[in-house]
């Protein structure tokens, strides 16, 4: 077992444990903080996969913006909810069942696929994934249309969020 594999197992265990704490923790603030741990674990995986830009974007966008937004929303909607009302709804047994079925089915489908044992492809010496990504996002023959659509979507979400949460006098 190499050092990378040990790092992978440790980070995977921490991320999955944090994910479990997110969905089972009674206190919402604790849930949100565990969510930060889980998102950070995913950022470590991006580093292991040599996608450095995505790792930085994960920290900036997910941890820096989304998790903080969620913490703000929890503080704005605070109530007795986290003390005496039940954490789970009546269907939680079925939820465990469905989640286990999905996990088993995904694992089975993926491990029976022949490409699963393929080793990691070599990155060629001259190629620079970051430069390639930047060029692909603005190249008309690749992803400029989805990229612009994403920015329009973000603008629409911004306007929509302000409009929805506006307090009318």
């Amino acid at each position, binding site marked *: 077992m190499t050092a*990378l594999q040990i790092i992978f197992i440790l980070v*995977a265990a921490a991320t*999955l444990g944090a*994910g*479990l704490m*997110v*969905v089972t923790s009674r206190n919402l603030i604790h849930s*949100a903080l565990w*969510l930060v741990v*889980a*998102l950070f674990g*995913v950022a470590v995986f991006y580093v*292991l*996969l*040599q*996608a450095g*830009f*995505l790792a930085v974007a*994960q920290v900036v*966008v*997910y941890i820096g913006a*989304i998790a903080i*937004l*969620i913490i703000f929303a929890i503080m704005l*909607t605070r*109530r007795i*909810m*986290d003390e005496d009302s*039940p954490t*789970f709804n009546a269907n939680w047994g079925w*939820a465990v069942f*469905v*989640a286990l079925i*999905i*996990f088993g089915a*995904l694992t089975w489908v*993926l491990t029976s696929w022949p*490409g*699963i*044992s*393929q*080793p990691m*492809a070599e990155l*060629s010496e001259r*190629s620079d*994934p970051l430069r*390639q*990504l930047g060029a692909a996002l603005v190249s008309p023959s*690749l*992803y400029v249309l989805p*990229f612009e659509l*994403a920015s329009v*979507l*973000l603008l629409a*979400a911004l306007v*929509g*969020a*302000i409009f*929805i*949460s506006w307090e009318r006098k």
Partner: protein
Amino acid sequence: MIPLSWYLIFAAALFSIGLFGVLARKNAIVILMGIELMLNAVNVNLVAFWRYRAPEMIAGQAFAIMVFAVAAAEVAVGLALFISIYRRRNTVAADEIDLMKW
């Protein structure tokens, strides 16, 4: 050398945890957090497939960035909705928000 299957099984586990949170929790904000976990699992899959199968094409990373944008938009609108509902009905429990239930 980490096998591709480790990443895929990890992502499947993270997705299932998120799915459990979405299906089982009462609080709407935790449901949103479960959706975030699921989107992250999908992103790990996209990047792992990019790295192992086709590192010369950048599609995996480009789509992961689209997922980032969609997740940010979804959280902004979702949290605005919950805050608005909380103001009017004083709850964010998903089963008490039943205005449109016939």
